[in-house]
């Protein structure tokens, strides 16, 4: 009996580890391949805006080495200020791909750094799903872990930031986030220094990778704090938190960009406060065991009040003295949701910083968003130390995701975990074959059945013979009224829903999140063929080939990284929006008249101006549509020169046609976008100068540029580049060649010998000092 059960146990263990391995492998492969749409449709290319900077920095690091990179002063950005790159980036991403590149080259595998950058995020999605599995296993059960792992592999909310080519911090940061949380939960469970030191190291990686590390350093103290309130203090908690906090603090201060922030800004103060509190609680606990009850009570009251007063005074005093910086605007806008709209237009102008509709929740998470409250409910029902953590994680993440679309990314892992708990609980109930096995908590049971179903969900449909045999054998009436028919219907329905989830994920990934946005594709409605617009790269390549190496290019900040990355030219402003007044100056130049902006442009040494214009093909993300933000940002710094109200019509409309506001029709951005557009007839029936994006005939058709000249316009007019003339090119009173001839007139002189001397008849006599009478 004993021996046979041991054999059975080892057999089960073998099977379950095989299944675990298989499911995680399949999840990795599925996650990797569903992120490849963009590569297959277009090519292996870096996407969007920020990734271009990361790529450029990585290439620089690979070429020049780590220390050169750390000291890199980029004079090609933010002209004439420049930018200290080494001290203003999170270097984790560059180090990761740089070291992969190094290892591969040591192994004599010649891979270009670009390909590593393109495929980094999909590879890391597999690691994310493994760490999600580990975390969920710690929190609930291995079955739920497998569900969570396969959910997070394909869920659109995470794919949106980690498709191939989207080479951004978030791609590796979510892995670091989940892994840190796993190690933290492990260390709370075991109370071992080993795991909490591991958590601190993983936290260090997270700090080096993404600014979202603030989420960790606030969530973990919150966890500790809530545990203290709930009276769940234990020496394990003391060990793990104090180790984690001190090591994590020291590690995080090693990143140059973070520096002394962890001890000087309010975002990090909660962690310190909880650390002090935990110490106080530990001391009190110790005193309680030493002192008598009365003494302790007195000490508790006096000491508690004194400590609270000291801490309060210290925090307020330090904040007043400016040692501790108050909340920065970006974080403040998370609490006071109307703050950014009023005070920081540059944050409000980014579409990722908008609140989230229910639509995008469902779009990004599908059934998981409906299922995760179930997991939350059961976590609260069967609470323990580590489930407190996941509950807090879920509630804070769902709040932040509601405030900002962008933070959907931090919600996604916890939703996957809790939905995994829900689905695994559900299938636990309905795949259970024997009533006798169901005694005890089903939710906690570690059975291979849900692993099995997991693989069903991944569509590798294999079934164990044993299970079918059981199901056919048992008596339906024995199951407390739940017939096997009902069970199979429920399972079928749940599997249908999960299948719909998989299909939805693929559809969303393919349609919404797989466009590189520097190469545009559109379907021709007539013959259904796919056309590719490669105007951006065309323009950047033109710049790199036809302009001087040190040419300075002015554009709106969105295109700064791309110009630097692809054309390798100096830009004035870019996506690292650290200097608002510089951006406002560019905005002012764009929204002033040509003459006024010429003086701004000469003061900034601008050689070329680049604008994005979508009116020909109907591209809605162009500069005219962004123009109001330029005006707003410019107005914030130069309220006397630029007024937003001037750019609206009397009825408060923003329109580009003949009824548009005169300030708009004469500003530089308008002129550069619509120069010679009035002559263009897009359609045989339609009028000339018809803007397809705004569906209007432009108002100011016939104008010439004085201070600039058109240098290049791409095939579909998407990018237009103008050269700024030097002062001698327009200031000289020059005559064109055809004007230099004196025009022949039919004037015949009447002068003859008699009237040689000219006389004016009826010459008016001027009398000084008197008004001439009429």
């Amino acid at each position: 009996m004993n021996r046979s059960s041991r054999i059975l146990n080892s057999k089960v263990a073998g099977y379950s580890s095989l299944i675990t391995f298989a499911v995680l492998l399949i999840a990795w492969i599925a996650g990797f391949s569903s992120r490849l749409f963009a590569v297959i449709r277009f090519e292996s290319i870096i996407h969007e805006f920020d990734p271009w900077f990361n790529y450029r920095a990585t290439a620089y690091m690979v070429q020049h080495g780590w220390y050169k990179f750390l000291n890199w002063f980029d004079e090609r950005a933010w002209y004439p200020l420049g930018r200290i790159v080494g001290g203003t980036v999170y270097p984790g991403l560059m180090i990761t791909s740089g070291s992969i590149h190094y290892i591969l080259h040591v192994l004599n595998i010649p891979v270009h750094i670009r390909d590593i950058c393109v495929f980094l995020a999909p590879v890391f999605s597999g690691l994310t799903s493994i760490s999600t599995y580990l975390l969920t296993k710690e929190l609930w059960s291995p079955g739920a872990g497998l569900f969570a792992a396969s959910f997070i592999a394909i869920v659109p909310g995470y794919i949106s930031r980690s498709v191939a080519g989207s080479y951004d911090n978030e791609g590796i940061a979510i892995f670091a986030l989940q892994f840190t949380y796993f190690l933290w939960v492990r260390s709370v469970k075991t109370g071992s220094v080993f795991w909490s030191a591991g958590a601190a190291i993983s936290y260090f990686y997270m700090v080096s990778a993404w600014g979202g590390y603030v989420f960790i350093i606030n969530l973990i103290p919150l966890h500790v704090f809530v545990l203290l309130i709930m009276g769940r203090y234990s020496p394990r908690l003391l060990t793990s938190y104090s180790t984690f906090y001190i090591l994590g603090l020291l590690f995080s201060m090693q990143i140059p960009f973070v520096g002394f922030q962890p001890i000087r800004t309010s975002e990090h103060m909660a962690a310190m406060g909880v650390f002090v509190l935990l110490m106080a609680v530990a001391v009190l606990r110790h005193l309680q065991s030493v002192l008598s009850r009365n003494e302790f009570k007195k000490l508790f009251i006096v000491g508690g009040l004194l400590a609270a007063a000291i801490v309060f005074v210290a925090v307020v005093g330090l904040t007043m003295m400016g040692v501790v910086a108050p909340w920065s605007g970006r974080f403040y806008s998370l609490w006071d949701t109307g703050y950014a709209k009023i005070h920081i237009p540059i944050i409000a102008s980014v579409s990722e910083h908008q609140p989230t509709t229910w639509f995008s929740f469902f779009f990004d998470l599908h059934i998981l968003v409906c299922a995760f409250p179930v997991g939350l409910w059961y976590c609260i029902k069967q609470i323990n130390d580590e489930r407190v953590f996941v509950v807090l994680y879920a509630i804070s993440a769902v709040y932040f995701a509601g405030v900002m679309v962008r933070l959907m990314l931090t919600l996604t892992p916890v939703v996957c975990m809790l939905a995994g708990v829900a689905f695994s609980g559900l299938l636990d109930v309905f795949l259970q074959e024997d009533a006798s096995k169901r005694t005890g908590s089903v939710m906690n049971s570690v059975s291979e059945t849900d692993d099995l179903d997991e693989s069903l969900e991944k569509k590798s449909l294999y079934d164990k013979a044993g299970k079918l045999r059981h199901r056919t054998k048992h008596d339906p009436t024995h199951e407390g009224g739940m017939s096997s028919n009902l069970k199979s219907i429920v399972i079928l329905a749940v599997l249908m829903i999960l299948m719909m989830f998989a299909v939805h994920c693929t559809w969303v990934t393919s349609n919404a999140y797989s466009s590189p946005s520097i190469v545009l594709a559109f379907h021709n409605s007539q013959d259904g063929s796919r056309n590719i617009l490669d105007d951006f790269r065309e323009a950047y390549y033109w710049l790199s080939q036809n302009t001087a190496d040190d040419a300075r290019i002015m554009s709106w900040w969105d295109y700064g990284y791309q110009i630097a990355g692809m054309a390798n030219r100096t830009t004035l402003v870019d996506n690292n929006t650290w200097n608002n007044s510089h951006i406002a100056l560019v905005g002012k130049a764009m929204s002033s008249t040509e003459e006024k902006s010429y003086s701004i442009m000469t003061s900034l040494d601008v050689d070329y101006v680049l604008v994005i214009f979508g009116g020909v093909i109907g591209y809605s993300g162009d500069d005219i549509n962004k123009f109001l933000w330029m005006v707003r940002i410019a107005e914030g710094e130069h309220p006397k020169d630029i007024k937003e109200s001037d750019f609206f019509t009397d009825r408060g409309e923003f329109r580009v046609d003949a009824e548009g506001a005169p300030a708009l029709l004469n500003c530089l951005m308008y002129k550069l976008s619509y120069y010679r557009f009035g002559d263009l007839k897009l359609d045989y029936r339609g009028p000339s100068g018809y803007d397809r994006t705004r569906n209007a005939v432009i108002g100011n058709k016939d104008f010439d540029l004085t201070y600039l000249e058109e240098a290049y316009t791409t095939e579909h007019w998407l990018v237009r580049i103008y050269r700024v003339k030097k002062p001698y090119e327009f200031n000289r009173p020059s005559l064109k060649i055809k004007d230099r001839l004196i025009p022949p007139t039919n004037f015949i002189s009447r002068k003859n010998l008699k009237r040689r001397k000219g006389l004016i008849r009826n010459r008016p006599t001027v009398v000084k000092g008197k008004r001439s009478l009429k």
Partner: protein
Amino acid sequence: MTLLRNTLLCTLIVLGGCLFLVAAQGKLKTGLSLAEKVENLVEMNMKKPLLRFNGAKFREYVKNAPRNYSMIVMLTALAPSRQCQICRHAHDEFTIVANSYRFLPIYSNKLFFASVDFDEGSDVFQLLRLNTAPVFMHFPAKGKPKGADTMDIHRVGFSADSIAKFVAERTDITIRVFRPPNYSGTVAMITLAALVGSFLYIRRNNLEFLYNKNLWGAAAVFFCFAMISGQMWNHIRGPPLVHKTQNGGVAYIHGSSQGQLVVETYIVMFLNAMIVLGMILLIESGTQKPNNRNRIIAIAGLVLLTVFFSFLLSVFRSKAQGYPYSFLFK
């Protein structure tokens, strides 16, 4: 002869009288001198930061030259019988701006704030050809107000900040708005805390309910419902409750994926709640002791889950153009 002399005398007298009258009228028309006006205004301003004008005073201080000061005038209708809800808000905001200006170091006699109520100076409304309220107008020191001197409240709203911005635009006097701290929030918080505290104190011997997991669970799940149904979006953007369609019907669902209506979010919240309930019922049906009720619970859970999920999916589908999938029904 005497007749002639008499007539002359009479004419003289009449003429003189006329002259006198004309002179007197001229004197009346000039009214107060500039210095007097400024002095009066400053004096009035000492008492109240926001001056209140009737028709006569408006003509005296605002309409008539000479002036060397700018005037920001709010034309409003505050009487309850006029039923102007936003006038009250506008008045509050305007008062905040006027107060902030009054106690700033840049306060001078170059700019005054005034308000004219419709019931006290309806002639002013006729004079300016206005038939709506509230209207904010700037009367520059020289010349007449132009088009841009009327604040466009439909576009910029009438919050104190935008009024201050308007003032800065028109007069180059930048007013830093100082809002009197709003104590209502604090008071509400203190009341709430006191209530909760006293409640806990009364039940101090029976604090079992704090350990009630169902209560906590329900609160957490409800919070999640509120967030995932986009209540935060509603809070920030303030969408309308429902839309009116062209053919007179009422639309509960916003047509595009970019927006949502308040009722729509409640519907979605309900659908989500039903799906969650369905799943919980399904799980509960297996965890209890085997009996006949389980079967009914399981069926109910299954129906809730599938039907409401299909509903949710079809609502989603109606908002997403070209979304191909549906479940049970379209």
